């Protein structure tokens, strides 16, 4: 019973790890940075409004560059 529960928990954890992190850990880390930025700058309206989308753009471009075909 414990073995089956352990296997189920491992499979469940692996599913979510693959789903959220997978082969792009930089995007997952980037999202954490975006959330932290929004929380830290919530009283600095202009800075937050500009930085949140800019950070998203920077992370996706950097991740695409990392995943480019390398000849």
């Amino acid at each position, binding site marked *: 019973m414990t073995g089956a529960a352990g296997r189920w928990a491992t499979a469940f954890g692996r599913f979510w790890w693959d789903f959220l992190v997978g082969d792009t850990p930089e995007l997952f880390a980037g*999202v954490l940075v*975006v959330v932290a930025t929004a929380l830290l700058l919530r009283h600095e309206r202009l800075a937050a409004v500009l930085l949140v989308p800019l950070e998203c753009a920077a992370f996706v471009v950097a991740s695409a560059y990392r995943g480019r075909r390398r000849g």
Partner: protein
Amino acid sequence: MTSTVVLVLAVFAASAVEMVEALTIVVASGTTRGWRSALEGAAVAVAVLAVIVGAVGVPLVHLVPIDVLRVVIGALLLVLGLGWLRKAILRSSGHKAMHDEDAVYAKTVAELATAVGRARPQRDALGFVVAFKGVFLEGMEVVLIVLSLGSSAHRLGLAAVAAAAAVLVVGGAGFLVARQLSEVPENTMKMAVGIMLTSFGAFWVGEGSGVHWPGSDLAILALIAFFCAVTALAIAAMRHLLTARAGVSTVAGR
């Protein structure tokens, strides 16, 4: 109003894209292992997914404080949206092969046809499992999008209806055209959905954190325009990178 329309469009498009992928597997399973098992597998998967939406979504909306929900869900949407956008940039710039439903169909048919027990009994376990897994795994992403967008905007019912409409439209059209699923402009749709999910994600992370977006809901449209521009620029830059490298290889090869 603006955010409701964009929400419905985002959920519908995301669900439609995932449904095309799921349908490819169901059609492949149906034609090789028999329709009865394939359809039963797909139906059971849809029922399980609907139970998950009801069991997780409703308590989520009523028990978790809205600002916490918006930050967590905004982050989840960003993870999904940025991932889709990254793939779209790589595919459109030629750095990654386009998603080809014909290839997926051919691969699934080949695997199923060579599997043990080619004879088709009334109920085929392999056909059932393949159809169930295809619909469940692709549908899980739809469930997350429905729960995320629906609960953060307090429109869970509307999001579920938009997803169900996409399932019906794509399911109906899919069985009419059977194998011509490759005609669906899936890569373009994925790019559009990636842009919408990223825009909603950034918006909800900001809202939940206490950031006041200028223009309130209208900021979503500005975010969509911004991410459209970023995507277009990134594709152009990555294409340039590829052609520049091809030029260097040609010169070096001489």
